[in-house]
């Protein structure tokens, strides 16, 4: 892996994003739309109104959590592409746990808080276990985790999709949805009056990011993990059991993905629907993490950027003719540009803009 300074990483991330947006604008222009209108829509859709800001922060919350989940794995050298599946399984587990536990508890705030905790714990466990599976298969069976986690994404979506269509479809639901969570289970609206965003959700995301940052930087477990990612043989020399570390990494990563799933269920949706249509947060998280150089704190600004993009995407989908899928393509381009820092280094050298190091 190429060694980069903090400034270089920041530069690469910024240039990659700007370049991807520029390509997006070119596509807009080439396909016959007005890039100026499109840019204005981007801004309006992300920060143009209180509702837009709330929507941006809602997406940001999910991107921070899923991004941190990916970052943990990537830092330890494990390619967990399965955050989407762990996110779905975690979110669905929240619904199940809350619906099954609710009748046993009193209604009201206290019951609500307990159910929140139960639901989140269920998501953490479910996400962790679902991620541990490919970890175990990699550590003890040599199965490439990129492929197994992607397969497990398809399986999670298919299986949960079948569950919400059939066995767990809410009574009298015409759409394939589960029953709604009880009304008193939810995060309070404090600042923004939005049914699907609570500043507490964002607070949880920030806290998780900070916690994981401390875990990676200040604990011997984190040191073991990061060292395994940098140089597995050196980690082994220093007493790290590589196989166990793979499983542990996947589990922690899946647990964070589970939290993301719980937040999605509790804060945004309030029930579970066919996961084929809930959004690809787990995949976009890969871009978030890479943009953040796999740093959990870096996932905060990166998550904000992607939150803004996604928010603008849903606005554009409604208020203009430009297909919203463009945003997904732009995210893909960001990832593509980040994959080749050498490209920028050479470009920088050629244009004489720095790049004298190395």
């Amino acid at each position, binding site marked *: *892996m190429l*060694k980069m300074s903090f400034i270089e990483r920041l530069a690469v991330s910024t240039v990659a994003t700007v370049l991807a947006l520029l390509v997006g604008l070119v596509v807009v222009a080439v396909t016959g739309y007005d890039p100026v209108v499109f840019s204005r829509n981007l801004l309006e859709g992300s920060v143009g109104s209180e509702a837009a800001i709330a929507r941006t922060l809602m997406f940001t919350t999910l991107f921070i959590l899923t991004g941190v989940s990916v970052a943990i794995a990537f830092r330890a050298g494990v390619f967990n592409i399965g955050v989407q599946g762990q996110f779905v399984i975690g979110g669905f587990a929240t619904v199940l746990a809350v619906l099954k536990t609710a009748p046993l508890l009193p209604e009201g705030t206290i019951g609500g808080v307990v159910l929140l905790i139960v639901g989140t714990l269920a998501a953490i466990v479910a996400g962790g276990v679902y991620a541990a599976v490919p970890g175990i298969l990699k550590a003890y069976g040599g199965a490439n985790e990129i492929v197994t986690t992607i397969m497990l994404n398809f399986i999670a979506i298919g299986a949960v999709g079948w569950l919400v269509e059939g066995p767990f479809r809410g009574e009298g639901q015409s759409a394939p949805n589960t029953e709604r969570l009880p009304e008193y289970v939810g995060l309070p609206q404090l600042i923004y009056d939005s049914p699907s965003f609570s500043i507490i959700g964002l607070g949880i995301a920030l806290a998780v990011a900070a916690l994981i940052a401390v875990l990676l930087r*200040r*604990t*011997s*477990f984190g*040191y*073991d993990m990061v*060292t395994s990612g*940098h*140089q597995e*043989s*050196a980690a*082994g*020399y*220093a*007493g*790290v*059991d590589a196989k166990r570390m793979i499983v542990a990494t996947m589990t922690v990563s899946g647990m964070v993905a589970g939290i993301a799933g719980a937040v999605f269920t509790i804060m945004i949706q309030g029930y579970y629907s066919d996961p084929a249509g809930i959004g690809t947060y787990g995949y976009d998280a890969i871009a978030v993490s890479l943009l953040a150089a796999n740093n959990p704190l870096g996932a905060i600004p990166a998550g904000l950027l992607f939150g803004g993009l996604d928010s603008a995407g849903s606005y554009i989908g409604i208020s203009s003719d430009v297909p919203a899928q463009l945003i997904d393509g732009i995210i893909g381009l960001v990832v593509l540009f980040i994959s080749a820092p050498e490209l920028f280094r050479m470009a920088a050298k050629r244009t004489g803009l720095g790049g004298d190091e190395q």
Partner: protein
Amino acid sequence: MSRDSPQEPAVRLEGITKRFGDVVANDDIDFTLERGTVHTLLGENGSGKTTLMSVLYGLYDQDKGTIHVDGESREFDAPRDAIDAGVGMIHQHFQLVEPMTVLQNIILGHEPTSNGLVDESSAREDIEAICSRYGFDIDQHLDTPVRNIDLGARQRVEIVKTLYRGAEILIFDEPTAVLTPQEIDQLLEMMTELTETGCSLVFITHKLDEALSVADQITVLRDGEGVDTVAVPETTEQELARMMVGREVKFDRAARETTPGAPVFGVDGVRVDGDRGRERVSGVDFTVRAGEILGIAGVQGNGQSELIEGITGLRPLTAGTVRFDGNDITGMSRRRRIESGIAYIPEDRQTEGLVQDYSLVHNALLGNQTISPYTTHGFVDWGAVRDHAEEIIEEYDVQPPNPDTDAMSLSGGNQQKFIVGREIEHDPDVMIASHPTRGVDIGSIEFIHNRLIELRNEGLAVVVVSSKLEEIQQLADRIAVMYEGAFIDVVDPDTITEEELGLLMAGRGRDEDSDVNPRPPDADESDRATTTGDETGAPLRDEDDRPGTDSHNGGVQT
């Protein structure tokens, strides 16, 4: 090839200069190879021998200087040009594709075809002709994958490959590094025969005796500069050694009194499997006492690495026990072994001993993750770790003395000193050192040797593995010679001669003419390649002892 002017030398290099960044690998070097002779390039690791020959072979472009082959001025942009001009190189790291057969390897890049398909039968005829002309035996094994033949045979495949491409000027890059003494003799003989059939050879080495035994002329390089070129009859080993290192070198062993104490560490009946599940260590016993250095000698690939990995807890044993301080620690995890005072200087500092893109501070924690004061209750005290790093840098004279430098920017010698310092500062009871001075500059070698002897005098039990005979003889109180997974003998360094040791390392009872055998004991060599960074057991990538050059595919090492 034009032969009409017999006065023209086969190769003439004039004023070759080659830089890698700020490092001058070759500084204005002249070199002349006469027809039908062997010309040795002699020098320490990192003196620029391989770089010079890589320029001749078209792997590098020189910054300055000219190349003449057979009297004609040449520009080689790529190996292909050199090959076309009749120059071939037998690389130190064999350039062979292991899963492909011997025949496929020989013809790679020069495949005869008919109807678009590779014509293996016509290739076979050509190869057999070459083999009978020069007396090679590998035509018996043309359809064997290279990974299944032993190192000596691989080297012959390399030579035949070069001849198949029509080379008459052959460059041998450290060809003896991986061979047993008997195989070395065979090779040197073969080189003489090659010159008799008209080939001209360049022989790169850092071993004085080999240089003297086969060469007609010797050019000595030091720090990228040509020191002198001498004709063999007119020089001596002492003179060459002085030219190589710039000062007189003593070969004697420091005398010291031996006072071994109680047994500290030992193994009984240890067996270990290699990466592919084949047994590499077949029943080894030894005991090391306090205040004693046990040296384990042997040609690379006879199970030393697996033995050490087994006793340090990096590789499971299939049988046997490990004892430490009277306790059976066979089932103890690697981490517990570190904590209980077994220090280990690993064979491969690049991939195991240091995390290359960590600072020295972060590297100071490597292996100490669970040890107070660096870590308490799972939380790291980076202040304490930094102090520790600074201590090591100071005590062990690590250059540059900056704890925030990345490990990869240190030279090999300084990397090794940092590791040695870190392991000694563990305050261990046992020190296991695997090739502690491989690829390390002379000054650091002395320093590291002195530290190991100090440890022994302080009463530690020390195990040193090395394939360098002089190192083993200087350090060890007892020498165990390992051959094909077992100790063939344990000897006293004061009474054994180097020749006897060499015979032991070759397995003594082994057939004199070791021809191409499918190689059971070395079968695992190939997969260790990826973990130790080197398939032939030859020195490591950073051999240069220079920063910033190892991105060049190992080609710059000399």
